[in-house]
């Protein structure tokens, strides 16, 4: 199981929990499991989400491996100027 940190306004979809656990070995599985377990997260995933895994931010790479002890934090999709 991977522990995933959920930001404040997204906690409405996790029953207020700041951290949830899902079974995932990579980024794609993480997002799929999250959307299944917490359908309220789906609109934000559609709007765009970035995932910080052990301090590095990933936008799209599905098969980025996630270890059970990885620090995983959801972020709104990062853009730039």
């Amino acid at each position, binding site marked *: 199981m991977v522990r995933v*940190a959920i*930001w*404040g*306004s997204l906690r*409405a979809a996790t029953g207020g929990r*700041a951290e949830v656990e899902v079974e995932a070995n990579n980024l794609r599985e993480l997002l799929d499991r999250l959307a299944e377990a917490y359908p*309220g997260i789906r*609109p934000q995933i559609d*709007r765009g989400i970035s995932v*910080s895994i*052990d*301090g*590095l*931010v*990933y*936008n*799209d*790479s599905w098969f*980025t491996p996630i270890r059970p002890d990885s*620090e995983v*934090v*959801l*972020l*709104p999709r*990062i*853009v*730039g*100027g």
Partner: protein
Amino acid sequence: MALDDKPELEVRVFKIVGSRPIRPDGIDKVTGRARFGADMSAPGMLVGLVLRSPHAHARIRGIDTAKAEALPGVKAVVTSADFGEVSDDLRDILHNVMAHDKALYDGHAVAAVAASSASVAKRALALIEVDYEVLPHVTDVDEAMKLDAPVLHEGRSDETVPAGMSANIMHRFEYGHGDVEAGFAAADEVLERSFKTAATHQGYIEPHACLASMGPDGQADLWCCTQGHYMVRNTCAGLLGLDASQLKVTASEIGGGFGGKTTVFLEPVALALARKAGRPVKMVMSRDEVFRATGPTSSTSIDIKIGMKRDGTITAGWADLRYQGGAFQSSPVQFGAMACFAAYDLANVQAIGWDVVANRPKAAAYRAPGAPMGTYAVESVVDELCEKLGLDRLEVRLKNASRDGTKAAYGPRFGRIGLTATLEAAKAHPHYTAPLGPNQGRGVACGFWFNFGGDTCVSMSINNDGTVSLSEGNPDIGGSRAAMTMMAAEELGIPYERVRTTIADTSALGQNEVTDGSRVTFAVGLATIKAAREAITIMCGRAAKIWGIDEDAVFWEDGHAKPAGPNAGKFPPMSLAEIAAVASNTGGPIAGHHEVNAEGAGVSFATHLVDAEVDPETGAVKILRYTVFQDAGKAVHPAYVEGQFQGGAVQGIGWALNEEYIYGPDGRLQNPGFLDYRIPVASDLPMIDTVIIEVPNPGHPYGVRGVGETSIVPPLAAVANAVSAAAGVRLTELPMSPPKVLEAIDAAGD
């Protein structure tokens, strides 16, 4: 990217990276030969112009183009009716480039013409009759959030917005951790302040421009100034119902962007006109159009509350940020909320962001989008707390600074970061302790930006004469071709002059993310190094064939293939040129390429120091001295890294002092020109001193971090802190234009 790359910076001695060669596009740019967006023409070309709404908010009841179409010389007129249905993700972009049922801001495009000359096109615009029903408008963010405010779009708020709030609130965002109330209770001093910042524009000197042509078969060519021609291709193809393969976009030289050229404005319109007219159409914005109808950044209204102990420990931070993003959801408030406390290691932090629409042009990205405003507010309050508690401003920042492993205020733990290195450098710098005169003050502030990577393609050809042609897909906005050339030459072990880097058109490479997010030197550099390594592998293989030894027994060093292990010394090393000369004989042309979604960008921190003097009788502010300390990871071309630091600092100075969008009560922009939109001029400024800190980014083979955006984050706060110290009164509104400064001084004196 694969994360197997170990940071090589500390072991690797660079030969070219870190030097200051002349940029490859330099001579063209100092001789006037470089071709920018408006510098291209085509046979039979028409001139395209846009008709824009004079109203801030109006329903379009009808558009009659008959008279314009009848004018001799007019070849095409388009309105929103000429664009078909588009996917949801493109709808706002389409309705921004051509108003649909409502004009949502002063300057909103409602129709466009293509004609044989500019003067005919101008007359044609005057002949288009638009039937407007003028509606009430709102341009201020706090006003737009009120329940009785005029509503721009019904039913567009997302699920994050609590019921019963204004329909102009598109999104609510919140992050944080710990217990802020407990944190405030533990503080010796708690300070809450409100701030406002005006909307600013990127202010690139080159107006948007493009040249489009399209045949009846749907094959189209587009030349334009953009930060991302692949983005332009994908977006225009979607808006016009074209196949991406049929639309070839070539990026011109680009005269500045700073985020403002990361979307489309004229390009789809020019293509639609070209399709209808069957002739090439050139469109160039006037400066007035650039200000009224491209993408400035948000105006904001922000509340900050911070608790501090007497020893300087920050016990809690809270922020409520309200950003309007213009007529369509696009404010960068999330990033403001995420970035504003990033410099601090906080046990208790909460930030709330409100993304609001208003009758202004749709916001585009502007250098570290959203971060400068939130940071300005936070750093102002930290500064005032230091003042109240008699604490040194740098010591307090050092005490609370984010370090390697700190749980960032926006969630993740930081990897290797250089914030404390910038603070220590500032503390040790003579600027920090230099004496100040009367009416002078010193300001300090820190800033942060995420940086990112994204889709990137690079192709590298080893030419038969031993030179190298490098193709990449990111418009060069500030010297990136020099950086790519340097990294290619470094990796290949050949002189800088042997490599030429070209920005390829969209037909030549796979998808490339826009030149934004401070990504290019990081991501394209990474792909360049990987492409070079692929070419090296091939070249080692060719040498192995020639020598009749195993490929694994050859290694690459200093631009040569050399036999290794038991074969060491058996054969004279073969240079790149020697291998290239016989490429046809050894298996054919040699090339390397790399396609990647470059993840793993490193965040970047900066600390800025500034001295300002205030004329207490007029409120005039003079910037006396400015020093930037920023972590670049590894500075590939230090002169252009310094340039990014200096340019960002000066844009921030402009934002702090005089730049602002000024709307009249009629909702029309009152200052759409460089006369009254006051960007800094040369005589306003001192030299901008820079100190490059290099804390390598583990995610890049050379340790590179993006540097382009962080530099605009601290200056709003640094200048505000300096001016407040010099004026003897806290300024809480940007810009700190002389009337506001004088009013604050006089109010404090009363």
